[in-house]
């Protein structure tokens, strides 16, 4: 029996597989094969020599949802709203994030105005019916959807967050009397703010049909190849979803890919007792950071498809990722100010960095690494892709000449500037939540992560960096460890004084049982089940709330106030006296752990036998100097390596600057302790 995770990214499809009995791990990588994505997965299975019939569980991360959204390739979608409010979707919030752009415009609404239909009904903010639903209009509406060739429809009525009665009725009618994919807002969000909730419902409907088709096709291809196990999808909240969940709420896959790395970081943190971590993932075009706070992946309640500046909001718990446009392929250039700039332009996979020899002539971060000896031209991607140092040098020479500087200074400058940009992203994920980054350890992965991680960590004063085994496959590996996870919310929007704590606890129980009902469909035994309760609270007149973790049973209002003030003070350094408090939302995370891969630590007492090679490598502060170059496969648990050193493996290279010490722990991680920083 095998547990398999397949991560289909933009360029590569990655696979990690584990045999739970022997503990044997396998990895493979192949090119992503749009539009027949299943082919990349089958290629990976073949490369890893896995018999499809032996797969018990297959976990799958996919970019199908975000691609459909960004490429505007969703269904022909309609929207049904409360009478008088069909323009909510287009009105939005009236803000202009590009404050000095006088030619600013947003992305066009996903549903144009002539496909937005109003229906007579109205609730007030307490959920009372002010105008009853015009039921007689429903047959007409269904006929119109058909006549217009609508494939998917979203229903979002005012105050359905408080009382979904009319949405339920419309949804039931349309599901019975039309062939459309139907999304009612309360099925995906129970939060107030009509624009954001409408947008969320519309986007879910928009991708509904294509995700159903994708699942049929992907699952069908695997089953055709003998797969008889269960297929699960990676949700943006860091958990796993069933096929049925995914069909109903496909939008929850919007950040399906990056979830694996975060789940993997939680897992290796748990093994070594580190609960506060920053997962740092650097690839070809970007670097991403995610905070892990007390063993939980930080999630944000609002996500933007297509970016905050011009995109569409999604009211759903999504991994809180801070991303910067710095990756191995980022191009260094002289901008219009006459200044050296790195990224956000990227050489991508084609032509790629100059040193790939595929026709690229612009210097990139990878070229700088190669020029400075930090990458080995003959061992890149396990030696399968020799690099051209001469081409890297030529590209860098040209840039250096235009700035009147020696090439080595420019190459090292490119790395320094990249480090600062990435450090800013890492700092942001911590300070925005009121943490000091120095209290966190970094888990670094992705092809380029280990190459830069220690310098990024040093820049912001972090003291420990963990490089997991196979960092180039870590996202797929991490997916093996994600739990089933459901986020449930309910907006209460009342003052603390008017909260009845007994009633609140009862509402939590209702939310929890609702979440537990979802678990009935997962089809595998649950080993442990956790309910985590939060209240979103704020001082009156504030817009932002903070998420306050509550105990399993909250005693009284005083306890609520005290917990809020503690969280507030930790995050902001102060709390107010005598200020009214609102309880805006209840939030429950249902986390179900099923049988998961068990890995055993390495036995101590192995003897290190391999000897390092030597190579001249450039380090910040030390310049070019000879240093040890190790092969990671040769290292054994307990072995300690002092920087300066380079550790090479198949799809990644770790750079250990002078003064830092890396120790191989019993899980195969390189646990680096930074020294000499001041």
């Amino acid at each position, binding site marked *: 029996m095998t547990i398999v995770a397949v991560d289909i990214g933009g360029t590569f499809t990655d696979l990690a597989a584990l045999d739970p009995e022997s503990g044997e791990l396998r990895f493979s990588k192949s090119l992503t094969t749009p539009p027949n994505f299943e082919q990349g997965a089958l290629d990976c299975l073949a490369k890893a020599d896995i018999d499809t019939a032996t797969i018990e569980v297959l976990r799958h991360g996919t970019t199908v949802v975000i691609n459909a959204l960004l490429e505007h390739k969703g269904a022909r979608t309609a929207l049904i709203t409360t009478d008088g*409010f069909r*323009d*909510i979707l287009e009105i939005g919030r009236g*803000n202009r994030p590009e404050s000095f752009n006088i030619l*600013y415009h947003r992305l066009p609404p996903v549903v144009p105005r002539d496909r937005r239909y109003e229906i007579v009904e109205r609730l007030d*903010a307490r959920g009372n019916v002010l105008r009853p639903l015009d039921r007689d209009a429903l047959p007409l509406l269904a006929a119109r959807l058909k006549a217009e060739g609508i494939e998917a429809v979203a229903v979002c009525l005012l105050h359905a967050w408080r009382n979904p009665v009319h949405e339920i009725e419309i949804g039931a009618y349309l599901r019975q009397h039309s062939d459309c994919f139907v999304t009612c807002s309360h099925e995906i969000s129970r939060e107030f*703010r009509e624009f954001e909730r409408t947008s969320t419902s519309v986007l879910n409907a928009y991708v509904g049909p294509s995700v159903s088709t994708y699942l049929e096709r992907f699952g069908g291809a695997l089953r055709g190849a003998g797969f008889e196990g269960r297929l699960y999808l990676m949700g943006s909240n860091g958990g796993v979803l069933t096929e049925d969940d995914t069909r109903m709420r496909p939008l929850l896959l919007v950040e399906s890919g990056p979830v694996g790395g975060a789940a993997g970081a939680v897992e290796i943190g748990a093994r070594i007792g580190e609960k506060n971590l920053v997962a740092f993932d650097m690839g070809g075009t970007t670097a991403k950071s995610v905070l892990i706070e007390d063993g939980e992946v930080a999630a944000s309640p609002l996500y933007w498809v297509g970016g905050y500046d011009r995109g569409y909001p999604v009211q759903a718990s999504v991994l809180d990722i801070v991303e910067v446009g710095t990756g191995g392929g980022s191009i260094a250039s002289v901008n219009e100010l006459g*200044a050296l700039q790195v990224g956000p332009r990227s050489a991508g996979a084609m032509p790629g960095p100059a040193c790939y020899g595929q026709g690229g002539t612009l210097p990139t971060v990878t070229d700088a690494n190669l020029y400075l000896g930090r990458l080995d031209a003959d061992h890149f991607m396990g030696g399968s892709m020799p690099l051209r140092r001469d081409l890297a040098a030529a590209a860098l020479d040209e840039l250096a000449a235009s700035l009147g500087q020696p090439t080595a200074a420019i190459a090292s400058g490119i790395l320094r*500037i990249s480090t600062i940009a990435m450090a800013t992203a890492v700092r942001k994920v911590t*300070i925005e939540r009121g943490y000091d980054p120095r209290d966190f350890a970094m888990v670094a992965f992705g092809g380029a992560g280990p190459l830069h991680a220690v310098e990024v960590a040093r820049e912001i004063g972090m003291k420990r960096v963990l490089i997991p085994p196979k960092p180039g496959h870590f996202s797929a590996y991490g997916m093996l460890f994600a739990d089933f996870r459901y986020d449930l919310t309910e907006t209460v929007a009342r003052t603390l004084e008017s909260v009845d704590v007994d009633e609140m606890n009862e509402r939590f129980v209702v939310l929890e049982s609702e979440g537990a009902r979802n678990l009935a469909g997962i089809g595998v035994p649950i080993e442990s089940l956790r309910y985590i309760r939060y209240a979103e609270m704020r001082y009156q007149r504030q817009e932002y709330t903070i998420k306050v973790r509550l105990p399993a049973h909250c005693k009284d209002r005083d306890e609520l106030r005290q917990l809020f003030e503690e969280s507030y003070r930790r995050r902001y350094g102060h709390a107010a006296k005598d200020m009214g408090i609102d309880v805006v939302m209840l939030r429950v995370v249902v986390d179900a752990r099923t049988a998961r891969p068990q890995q055993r630590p390495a036995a101590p007492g192995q003897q290190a036998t391999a000897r390092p090679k030597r190579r001249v490598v450039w380090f910040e502060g030390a310049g070019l100097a000879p240093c040890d170059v190790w092969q990671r496969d040769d290292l054994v648990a307990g072995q300690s390596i002092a920087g300066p050193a380079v550790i090479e493996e198949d799809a990644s290279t770790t750079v250990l600057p002078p003064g830092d010490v890396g120790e191989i722990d019993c899980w195969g991680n390189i646990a680096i302790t930074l020294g000499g920083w001041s």
Partner: protein
Amino acid sequence: MIAPAAPEATVDPVTLEIVRNLLIAILDEGEINLSRTAFSPIIYEVKDYSICLLDRDGQTIAQSRGGIPTFMADMGEPVRDGIEMYGADGFDPGDVVLINYSAICGQHLNNMILYVPVHWEGELIGFAATRAHWTDVGGRVSGGFSTDTTEIFQEGLQLRSVKAYKRGKPDEEIMRIIRHNIRYPELSLGDMAAQVGACELTARRFLDLIGKYGWQTTNACIHRIWNQSEALVRQKIAALPKGRFEAESFLDDDGIDPDHTLPIKVAVTIAADTLEIDFTGTAGQTRGAMNSGRSGGLAAAKVAFKSAIFPDLPANDGAFRPLQIVLPEGTMISAVDNAAMAHWNLALKTVIDTIYLALSQAMPDRIPAAHHAAQGLYTFFGRDAATGQRYSTLDTTLGGWGARPDGDGFSPLKTVTHGDTRNIPVEVEETFYPLHVESYAWRPDTGGPGEFRGGLGLRKVYRMIQDCKFVSAFERTKCPPWGLFGGKPGQTADARVRQSDGGETRSCRKVTGLPLAAGATVELLSAGGGGRGLPTTRPVERVLEDVRQGYVTVDGARRDYGVVVDAVTMTVDDAATQALRRS
């Protein structure tokens, strides 16, 4: 010494880039800190704030990227007031200075500047400064948005370069003065604490940077950044056609005297590599609260200059060196003698648009037609009968923006001075206030007709559930948002009140504290943006699509575009259209 001892030319490009990036990161972090810790919604939601690092002469080194656009490299004057008062030696580490004094700051008194000195090795090297909108500073009406005040003393407490903290300790006497002269002191003093925290953090990070790279290198980098910005902006100006370009417009009235419009005159002169904006001829300061001090006129000029010439370049003192501003004393954007300023930025939107109108002659491919610019500020306040608590709402309308050189105007947005500011959702208003919204929708035909159409205005209708009071400030109903190059103006804004006694609907564009009884309705109409190019050159199929979407009515298509559409079949009568367009 402040002048760089090391010649700036010796700064290597890598260090320069690191310092440039770190300065941006420092202010980003200060901004996160301020918006996250402030108590007043207008700070974190409306982003009514800015943070700057200034050198010891008050020149802007770097400014936060968020925040509203009007606060553009403009904290130098207020900081210099403190330098004059205390002397460069008069600041100790831990001092915190407050200033909202109108004769210097030139804005409504709610905008409180708070700054701290930054010392390196015992010497003053600069300041970290924040400006944030306090919810209340005392004065005639709660929140400060009166339309009928006539002198600044009616608008609240003025502080002029007052040290609120001395050597790290709050001055309790000053705190008492503030606390007992403003409404919601817990909010504003909370905001003040947030400002102190943000300034201290920004100063600390700046000192970390200096610690790493040395003051001489850092200072040389700062001068190099200024000079690079200046050179680039000069280069951009040099590429524009030379000449003098004039434009004018006017505002409705000053809120006190409804019969007198207020002219705005702008002359832009583009020389070799400088650009001059001359406001001579603009209306004198008014009795009503539409004034801003000199800093208001300067801000309008800077916003227009930056957004037209270098929208993507970070703002610093160097970038503005090629801009020359001629602003006579005593106009409504350079008011003196304690003029009322509650609505200090109401005029600025139109002033900025008028500068764009002048610039459109020099750079027609980069300037849009006029936007709604009406402000459309409105407040409902009272005591909620259900809870017994006081409440006060505050929002401004969203409206149409002008047609772009290559596309229709985008809509809806707040005004050009608002930036990244959001409206308040209907579900939130109805949850927290005794208000009911009946509808919120496009106003068809309000976008200025043109080959490229102006963005549409909106109609939002409120019905009162309880008795309350109403404040409004709506402008530009007499000088509609203009079109460019043959495009027509957009439809204008209005605020219409219908009392529950069944009386007539009344236009209430500028009222302060108008009583509304339960059942009364308030209809807020926002303006559309101006069009661009002749309406009859708009392709027929685009007009038809607008009719199908309901952006333009069948009548509007015929009247404004000469396109005849059958209302039943939604098809174009080609023959009738050709005939109409020919005539």
